[in-house]
């Protein structure tokens, strides 16, 4: 880490960029994180900073100050959204001082492979697996990843054992996305202050991930439930379903939650108006939220063990 204080992490949607950063940051005493392309939609930053306490998420406009202030002992991970062109990056850091990691999703990459010394067949595979999603710069495909170290998350022994692909991607499938008609879309639904009914969310998530609102490649979202929990839901086409993760945040039991939540989907022919409508239909009204929260607070007051683990619990004598 010492020699590479800044690590750029790129890869196709769903390849495991955030998870890889989570694993690296967990090994460090402290770490910083910046997601380029997330704008004001910090799903990954929320996940990383709650699940990896030694990690601090920073915003784009805080980067220069962070680099000046930092004594270079804190590793900084910069995640590049799949829609960000690495060639267009303008960072206040000399590129040669950065470690550049390109995550690729392929069982053939059984070990870390330097892109510059890759074989011809690997080169093609790499091109198809990354180009498919790097839609903004198809004409520069042979040069843009020069200097990047290619890593397959699947290869690392302790990595992703729970998330192994259910089927390997074929390059033919990946290259489908190169046609203009199937340009990948990103659609974001901001849900801050909204509380969802759990059963409704389950129905919606099933529909969403089974193609009811368009052809999905990726979906991830943070959702607030009425019992105060914030859930992270994750979907990647071709991978086994992942259990919802309860984020290590205090339970919110005092009105509409004043913290980030939202849904991001990546895919084709996405019907965003119907996604928004259905999400709206999953939300509880303020009166219902107040009613359930009051019930939960009352039951916490009656049982000390529960309220201890809850930040907003009523005081117990």
């Amino acid at each position: 880490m010492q020699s590479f204080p800044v690590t750029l992490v790129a890869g196709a949607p769903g390849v495991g960029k955030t998870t890889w950063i989570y694993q690296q940051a967990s090994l460090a005493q402290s770490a910083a994180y910046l997601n380029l392309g997330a704008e004001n939609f910090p799903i990954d930053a929320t996940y990383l900073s709650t699940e990896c306490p030694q990690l601090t998420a920073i915003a784009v406009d805080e980067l220069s100050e962070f680099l000046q202030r930092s004594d270079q002992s804190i590793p900084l991970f910069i995640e590049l959204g799949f829609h960000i062109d690495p060639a267009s990056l303008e960072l206040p850091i000399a590129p040669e001082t950065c470690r550049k990691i390109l995550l690729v999703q392929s069982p053939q990459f059984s070990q870390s492979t330097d892109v510059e010394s890759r074989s011809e067949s690997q080169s093609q595979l790499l091109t198809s697996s990354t180009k498919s999603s790097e839609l903004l710069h198809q004409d520069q495909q042979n040069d843009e990843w020069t200097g990047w170290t290619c890593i397959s998350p699947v290869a690392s022994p302790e990595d992703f054992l729970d998330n192994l692909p259910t089927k390997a991607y074929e390059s033919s499938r990946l290259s489908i996305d190169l046609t203009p008609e199937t340009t990948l879309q990103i659609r974001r639904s901001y849900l801050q202050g909204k509380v969802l009914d759990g059963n409704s969310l389950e129905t919606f998530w099933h529909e969403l991930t089974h193609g009811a609102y368009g052809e999905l490649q990726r979906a991830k979202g943070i959702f607030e439930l009425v019992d105060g929990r914030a859930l992270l839901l994750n979907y990647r086409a071709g991978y086994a379903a992942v259990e919802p993760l309860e984020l290590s945040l205090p339970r919110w039991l005092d009105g509409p939650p004043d913290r980030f939540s939202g849904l991001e989907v990546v895919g084709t022919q996405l019907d965003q108006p119907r996604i928004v409508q259905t999400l709206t239909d999953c939300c509880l009204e303020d009166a219902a939220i107040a009613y359930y929260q009051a019930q939960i607070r009352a039951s916490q007051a009656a049982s000390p063990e529960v309220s201890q683990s809850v930040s907003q619990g009523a005081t117990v004598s």
Partner: protein
Amino acid sequence: MKIAVMSCIHGNYEALNAVLSDIDAQNADKIYCLGDLVGYGPHPNAVVEMIRSLDIPTCQGCWDEDIVEGLNACECSYPSVLAEKRGRLAHEWTNQVIHPETRSFLANLPFSLREDNLCFVHGSPHNQHEYLMPGMDAFVAMERVMAAGADILFCGHTHIPYVRTLDSGQLHIKVQMAQPNGQSQIVTDRAVTTPLKRIVNAGSVGEPRHGRPNATYVMYDTNCDRITLREVEYNYQKTCADIIEKGLPAIFAWRLARGLEFAERADDPTHICER
């Protein structure tokens, strides 16, 4: 005698037609219908007209009742907020398009029907809205059949066909009482002898919930006392296209094509709203 029993057509005319043809091919002597003629599907008037013209004995389903009485069920009738909103949309649409004669036909449907030792209801002998789930407590299940005073209780409403045999024999009833130390003590242990009874759920013609789009119904042969669950393919794409064309939510068509019921059962199936 061969008796065909069907339920939960939900305005799906294509499915009804296919099931009636299959019943014909099976040489049924009589047909019973357990209600939910309307709701969700695009052809409520045509379905009611067909049932009426064929003079099929029909009991009133939960949707039929709601169309007549108005939707005044509490939100606990629905498994989720989303299901409730979709259910309301379907109800309001149906309420707008049905003809006066359709409404009066639904209003005059009986709550239950009898034929010898057979009883026909939509939900349970207590209420159109009560779900008799296949795995419900044996004692509760037996109580429902006894309440009907029948040997075989035919029901629908869950949209999942099943046959449940409640063996003749002894039902043990244990009543436990909590003590101040938190332990429980059995205060009564009674045994009740009951005859063999059956609950037969006819599934759903127009809104199946078994993971395939096919319609289901049951055939009961009184001579050999045999119950057969029938699954019938039909042109569900036609119904899906009509759902979209009529302006009903597109998700209804998406779920129908996958054999996913639009609104799943409530968390507490035996819960009945205070109306």
